[in-house]
Every structure is written in structure tokens, then in C-alpha cells.
């Protein structure tokens, strides 16, 4: 067969970076469009955290004692962290669905950046998390949440947890590409997420946990993120928790992103 000269741009150096960015944005836009077109998906994503807010604020909250302040101010930052982390499950489900429907196969045969499908998906999911943060913050205010840390600290807290959740979502991208279908992908994420979210200081202060769990519960990355977020929002001391969270985030993405991209190359 005779050679065919490839048409289009020569993807080297700068232009290849420019195209990679363009590919990521194209795919992120696709995922966001889908998000807005299935309003039920957003509603369901919101129901769970709102139920948690109501449950802990009005049912369990009465018996949980937190040092120096209102439980609601302790609770809402925790719920925010929990919700953005649960949001990463969506990354796994979305990729598993794309794989099931043959879309990944189509994307792999296109002359686009290899990491664009994963980059687009994780970025779209981060935008969804931004929306979630806004809504849960509003719900929090409605049930009496009064953060005293100031606006800029609030934003800093949001950025810390968004970054942590974003880095973690690359691990969930890997799960989505390993799972045989989207239901399995969802099921596979729970055993990973539940112990991390509940054996933590998200809902209950350290003193409320059994002694043998405290070491883990205090030092694990989700707790450290929650401590940083809560301290910044409420204007209390955060120690080095923000740096610990940041270090975990960068460590996670350095390990998880190559894992997910490598899996993407192999999967069909």
C-alpha cells in the first residue's frame, strides 16, 4: 500500500501541548454537558450529603460534644470534605460507562493526547465538586453554620479539599478502567472510601473514637484534610494539616496518574 501523508497539524513540542489542552477541554466540556443534561444525577448527588447534614445536625448532633463551639460549625466542613471525596466515585462510574459503551475504543483510535480522556473526566468531576461545595455551603448556612475564619480562608479551605479530591480521583479513574461495568466500579469504590471517611474526624472529634482507632483516624489523609478545612473555615488552629494534605495530594497524583494512564493504554 502506498504511503498516505497524514493531514493536520504536526504534533510536536509546543503544538502537542496546545492540542493536549484542547483535547482535555473538549472532553471536559462533553462530560459537563452530560452532567447538566441529567439533572437527576445532580439531584441524587446532592441528596446524600443533604441527608447527612440533616441527620448529624438534628439527630446525632445533640449527643456529639465538640471542644469549644457549636457542633454545626464542626460538622459542615466535614460534610464538605466527605462530599467532594464521594464525588470521586463519579469518576470511576463515568469511565466504566464510557468503556462499556465503546467510547474509550473510539477515543483511542483518534489522534488525540492519550491522557485527555482521563484529564477531561477528572476536570469535569472537579467542576461538579465546585458546584457541590456551593450548594452544601448554602445548605449549611440554612441549618445554622456560621464560619468565622473569613472569606479568603474559606476559599483556601475549598481549594485544599478540591485539590485533594482531584488527585484522589485519578485512583478512581483507574478503578473505572479496571471494573467490568459501572455497577461493579461503584461497588469497588465503597470498601476503599467508607473506612477512610468514617474512621476519621469528619463527623466525630478524636475523643469520641475508641483509643485504638485514634492514631489512624488522626493521621490519615482525609482527616488531615478535614482538620485543615475546618480550621481555616472556623478560624482556629490547623497546625501543619494543610501541608500534610497537600503532600498527600501530590504524592497520590504522582503515583495514581501514571497508573491510570498506563491502564488506559492497555484497556480496550
Amino acid at each position, binding site marked *: 500500500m502506498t*504511503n*498516505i501523508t497524514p493531514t493536520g497539524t504536526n504534533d510536536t513540542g509546543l503544538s502537542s501541548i496546545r*492540542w493536549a489542552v484542547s483535547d482535555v477541554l473538549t*472532553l471536559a466540556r462533553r462530560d459537563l454537558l*452530560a452532567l447538566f443534561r441529567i439533572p437527576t444525577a445532580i439531584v441524587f448527588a446532592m441528596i446524600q450529603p443533604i441527608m447527612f447534614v440533616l441527620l448529624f445536625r438534628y439527630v446525632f448532633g445533640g449527643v456529639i460534644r465538640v471542644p469549644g463551639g457549636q457542633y454545626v460549625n464542626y460538622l459542615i466542613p466535614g460534610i464538605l470534605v466527605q462530599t467532594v471525596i464521594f464525588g470521586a466515585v463519579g469518576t470511576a462510574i463515568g469511565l466504566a460507562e464510557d468503556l462499556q459503551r465503546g*467510547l474509550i475504543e*473510539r477515543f483511542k*483510535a483518534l*489522534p*488525540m493526547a492519550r491522557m485527555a480522556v482521563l484529564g477531561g473526566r477528572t476536570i469535569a468531576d472537579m467542576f461538579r465538586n465546585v458546584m457541590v461545595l456551593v450548594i452544601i455551603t448554602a445548605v449549611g448556612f440554612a441549618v445554622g453554620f456560621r464560619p468565622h475564619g473569613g472569606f479568603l480562608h474559606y476559599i483556601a479551605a475549598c481549594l485544599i479539599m478540591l485539590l485533594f479530591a482531584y488527585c484522589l480521583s485519578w485512583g478512581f479513574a483507574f478503578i473505572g478502567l479496571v471494573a467490568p461495568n459501572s455497577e461493579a466500579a461503584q461497588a469497588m469504590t465503597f470498601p476503599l472510601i467508607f473506612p477512610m471517611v468514617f474512621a476519621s474526624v469528619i463527623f466525630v472529634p478524636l475523643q469520641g473514637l475508641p483509643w485504638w482507632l485514634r492514631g489512624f483516624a488522626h493521621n490519615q489523609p482525609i482527616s488531615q484534610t478535614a482538620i485543615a478545612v475546618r480550621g481555616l473555615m472556623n478560624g482556629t488552629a490547623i497546625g501543619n494539616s494543610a501541608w500534610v494534605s497537600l503532600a498527600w495530594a501530590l504524592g497520590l497524583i504522582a503515583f495514581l496518574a501514571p497508573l491510570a494512564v498506563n491502564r488506559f493504554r492497555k484497556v480496550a
Partner: protein
Amino acid sequence: MEAVNIVRTFNDGKFRALDDVTLRVPTGQVFGLLGPNGSGKTTMVRILSTVLNPSEGHATVGGFDVVKQPGHVRRVIGLAGQFAAVDENLTGFENLRMVGFLNHMEKSRAITRSRELLIEFGLHEFSNKLAKTYSGGMRRRLDLAAALVADPPILFLDEPTTGLDPQSRQDLWAIIEGLVEGGTTVLLTTQYLEEADRLCKQLVVLDHGKIIAEGTSAELKSQLGNTVLVLTFNSTTDAQRAIGLIADLSSKPPNEEGTVLELTVNRGPASAADALRRIDAAGIILMGLQLREPSLDDVFLNLTGHKTDEDRLEEAPLDRRVKRTAKA
């Protein structure tokens, strides 16, 4: 496009999906890969379209090596996979435009090309409807349109008509023929002998990852016999008696399943008339007589002596056998 000694294993080498397959696909025509589910057709398409790497062997598409120059290959190919891979939550137009952008076409070009294709494929009035509202045939057309956005000179179509109704199938065939007239090279996989016969100049038949026959459609047909004669009797005893009477009408022994005999014959209606005369003369009551075109099962029975595996048959579409009533 060619593939030389391709081997692809899965599960750490335990399963050989492709076992030493060599193909040479001439430019500007439809080349067919025929085989049942699990025979390795899709794996071959995935290797040639750079979706999967081969375990052994090498392949070039448009003159580019699929492993060493995948980026170049991707710029000269279009792939329409098995599942009508369209994004259900995007409109028809958005689906095509997205593929255009991902092909790194200029924005305005991607948009005009998407509109052109929607008109060409009769989807214009549904351009702004979400793909999830499309019928099966419309999805397939959109999927094929997506593979054509960048005007690739080489096209991979993996079972493009599986699950389609006869009218949609005819429509898609006409589109594919039009593309080939325009100079496109097409590698098509199919489970339908009829489809391979209609579209493909040259064919390869795959079974368990190996090539078991190749040649033009006419060559394969003459190997197979043109028609299958299906006779149904009242009882297995009658069927057994009839075997002796009609066996010489075919070069192959009849396939018997209970009260039904199937015989591959070359003379179609004339052979049917012969069979009818002999059976009648012997006083055996015939419950049914049918002539049909050979199905993939018949091909396999003829080429390998075994039917396509039972577990695979379950996955296969129900309308695989194209039936035709005898008008002899």
C-alpha cells in the same frame, strides 16, 4: 494495509485471541473478516486501529507501523466499533463536532463537516436531539458518520449492521458502497455471509483466532455450495431412511438434527425437486421443505466440520439465517 503473523494473547498468554494471522488488504476496496463471535475479528480491528498492541507480529496501516507510529495511523483511519459508540447525552451534531475537534480539525471545518454528514446520513432533522433518543439504525449511522468526520482514507467497520433491521442494513450497505466508490479502503467484520457477499471483494474466514479460509466471495461460495436444502420429517426414522435416498445430491454428508435434515446443494431448486421425487417415491411423508442461503454455521460446518460453538451462538443475533422459501 497489511498485518503479518499477528498474535494477540490475553490473560497472561492463556488465551490466544489471534494466532498467527496474516492479512493483506488492497487499497480502495472492502476487505471482509468473517467469523462468529469470539473468533478474533474485533481483536484484529483493534490492533490495526491502534487500540490494542499485538503480542507478536507487526502491522502497517497506510504505510505506518501500528506500534511505532500510532499517531500517524490514527490520522488516516476512521473506526466504527461494535457498539455504536456515540455519547448518548450529546446531540447528534455535538457528537460529530467533538470527534472533529479530537481529530484536531479547525473549529469551523469540524462544524461544517458535521453538518454535511448529518444531511448525508439522513439525520439532519435530528441534529439537535440527544443521541439517546435515536433508534438503533440512526445510532449506527451517527457512529459511522463519526468515523468519517476527518475524511479518513481507511475505514474500520466492526460488525456495522449487527442488530439492525433489514431496511437499516440495506441503507448502511449503500453508504459503504458509496464510500468505496469514492476511493476509501474498508476493513469490515461481519457474521453475515450475505453481507460479506454483497460488499467484500476479498474475504478471510476466522475461527478461534486462525484463518481457516480466504479468497474472493465467489471462490468461497463454490467451496461451500450455493444453497442449503432443509427437509423436515414426521419422525427420526423417516429422516434416517431419507438420508440414504438423498445423500448423493451433495458432496458433503447431510447434517441431521432429530427430524430435520440439512444438505448443502449446488443446483438449488433442481436438487430440491430431485429430493422431493425420491422421498415421495419411497412413500415417506415430508413435513417441510425449504431452500436457504448458507449461513455462517454452514460455512463452519463445511470448513471445519464443527458448528460455531454453542455458547457463541447464544450471543449471535437471531436473524443470522437468511431464509428463503423454495419456489421450485
